[in-house]
């Protein structure tokens, strides 16, 4: 019904005597003559023809549709002009060449060549292209609904590849547990003062999974709204951690990785390394139930030693919008250099997916069940961590 209405509106099929009024754009818009270049005369003449004496109060009468119709005409005219401009310029250069040959003097040729090259840069089309290419560096004109910028991500990929391949030499185990199609919720441990484990999980799945799937990490509020970090995170595909966002992603059959430990995981002292903290309030279990998505437990080993936390300063962190400032053997003593994470050897293990399809949205209210399931997942991740740690001989060489 409404669809019909909108089409009817746009064609304007009713009220025959009034159509004239709607179509005539000249009643409302004054077009002033402007001296730009000889070519713009065309625009001016066309519009002046249409222009009649109008009363000033008729400005308000212009409806948006009339205006849009006129806008399109003018825009097309401009397009035509700017296209013609280059051709005119070429023909002009051709004329100059001919003339030069006929005179037979070429001592000016070097200068003329330079001048011509210089002048050709001022062709409107080329200037537009150059300016836009500088301004739009590493920026797409279209992003997905959560702000993932494909061009920016492609530019940032070498950095992640370097960290993944060279710096931490990430080894991926059991990546085949991740489904090739459809939704899945990855649940991982969270560690390291600077939480880059999310980025490494994304890179490892993209690189080693046969389907090259892209995973969307959910980020804590404090990081999501930290100055500068927020736009980097959004453009590279991170999403603010909230039930609504996660549901929306999973309903679109995406891979989502969550860190139920949250801040407790990344801020824990070094002596508690690889000991899982409390898993929130089981929000991720409810999420999996509501969206009927399988849960894949993930264990990351190596991130704890990359940034070993021996203390934390809360008040200093508050200044930059973080909940605390981590203190490591090198940071903040060595300044920004100390913030570089150590090149430890990383292992990322993916466990067998836990089927959640037998639970429905009704089970969301069952707190005891949710707690039990959450504890099961937690145990599985702890098992993965134990196995990986047993497998590892050396912190830095694997």
């Amino acid at each position, binding site marked *: *019904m*409404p*669809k019909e*209405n*909108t089409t009817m*509106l746009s064609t304007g099929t*009713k*009220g025959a005597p*009034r159509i004239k009024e*709607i179509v005539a754009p000249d009643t409302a*818009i*004054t*077009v*002033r003559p*402007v001296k*730009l270049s000889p070519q713009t005369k065309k*625009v001016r003449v066309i519009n002046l023809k249409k222009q009649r004496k109008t009363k000033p*109060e*008729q*400005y*308000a*009468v*212009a*409806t*948006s*549709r009339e*205006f*849009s119709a*006129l*806008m399109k005409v*003018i*825009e097309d005219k401009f397009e035509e002009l700017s296209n013609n401009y280059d051709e005119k310029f070429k023909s002009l250069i051709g004329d100059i060449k001919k003339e030069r040959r006929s005179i037979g003097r070429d001592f000016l040729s070097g200068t003329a060549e330079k001048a011509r090259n210089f002048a050709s840069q001022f062709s409107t089309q080329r200037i537009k292209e150059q*300016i836009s290419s500088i*301004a*739009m560096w590493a*920026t*797409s*004109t*279209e*992003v997905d*609904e*959560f*702000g993932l*910028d494909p061009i920016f991500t492609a530019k940032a990929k070498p950095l992640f590849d370097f960290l993944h391949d060279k710096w931490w030499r990430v080894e991926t185990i059991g990546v085949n547990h991740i489904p090739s199609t459809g939704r899945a919720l990855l649940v991982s441990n969270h560690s390291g003062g600077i939480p880059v484990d999310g980025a490494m999980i994304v890179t490892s799945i993209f690189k080693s999974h046969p389907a090259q799937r892209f995973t969307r990490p959910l980020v804590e*509020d404090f990081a999501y*709204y*930290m*100055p*500068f970090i*927020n*736009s980097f995170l*959004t*453009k590279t595909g991170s*999403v*603010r951690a*909230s*039930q*609504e*966002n996660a549901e*929306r992603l999973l309903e679109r059959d995406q891979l989502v990785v969550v860190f139920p430990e949250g801040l407790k995981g990344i801020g824990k002292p070094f002596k508690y390394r690889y000991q899982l903290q409390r898993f929130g309030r089981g929000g991720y279990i409810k999420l999996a139930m509501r969206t009927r998505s399988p849960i894949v437990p993930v264990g990351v080993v190596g991130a704890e030693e990359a940034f070993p936390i021996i203390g934390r300063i809360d008040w200093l962190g508050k200044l930059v919008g973080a909940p605390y400032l981590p203190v490591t053997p090198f940071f903040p003593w060595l300044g920004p250099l100390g913030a570089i994470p150590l090149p430890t050897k990383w292992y990322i293990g993916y466990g067998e997916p836990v089927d959640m399809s037998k639970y429905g949205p009704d089970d969301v209210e069952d707190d005891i069940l949710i707690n039990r399931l959450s504890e099961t997942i937690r145990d599985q991740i702890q098992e993965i961590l134990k196995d990986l740690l047993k497998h590892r001989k050396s912190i830095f060489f694997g």
Partner: protein
Amino acid sequence: MPSGKQSRKQQKKTQKVVITGVNSFIGSNLSRRLANDPRYQLVIIDIKKPDFLEKGVKFYKIDITEPMIDGVIADILKKEAVDMVVHLAFLSSPIKNTTLSHELEVIGTLNMIHASSAIKLKKFILKSTTMAYGANATNPNFITEEHPLRADHGVAYLRDKMEVEHIVRRFSEKNPRTVVTVLRPCATLGPTIRNFLTSYLASPIILTILGFDPLYQFVHEEDVIDMFRVAVEGDYPGAFNIVGRGVLPFSTVLKLSGKIGIPAPYPIAYSIVSMMWSAGLLPVPPVFLNFLRYSWLADGAKAKKMMNFESRYTTKDTLESFMGTQRLRELRLVE
């Protein structure tokens, strides 16, 4: 929702529509369209006579903020046997006279609601805005209509909008027979609309917040008018967001429109804007800077599902349509 037969029957009879705020952007466009439609008979209640007045359109010069005016409006509604009220008498930009804005938005709505309660009204359509959700760090990326309105109470403009919604919601609870439609357009741009956002985006140098780059969505003015038209024609109780498809980061918005963004740290930007607002140089108070820090995107899925309405323009198309006119304005080719 009525079945197809019923709605066709209703369409045969002419419906009387009261429009307030007819000199606003939506008011002028919607009333022109309805005046050209034989199915509707227009009754205009406004403080100022509109520039156009077609045949068969009745005009009552009434200030809806006056005390005791609700009885007068009720008499008019009764006399004219009105079916529908489209309440559009709102401000499109914040003003410094907060008393006036409160009188116009809240008391005006209250008077219209009182008058509407006095008769058996079929439909009440209200114009709100997605700004009423507020720009909060804890917003989900896409705010649905069920989400509470959590705009900053310290800003008169936003507080009034939330209060108006509250008044209308109470009215719809008390009068279950009346179809109450609340339409919440997001940031509206287009060739002819003028509001604080268009004047903000029209200046060549634009103040942004250092280190923040929220996602933005725009809806085209034509889509907003069409949505109001759809709401007038069918019965759709509840609140609906009107949004354009797709989102763009604010930095990309500036780049696409060829503007230069001047980033300032939030505290500095806050003091600059508050000084300029007090001096009357800026159309918005400093709290509006939150709309440049946090996302306040709305979800248009409900309108698509219930009204079968989807905006024709994407966010990018809308921006291009606005900026195209803006360029012509700068060249003084159009006014």
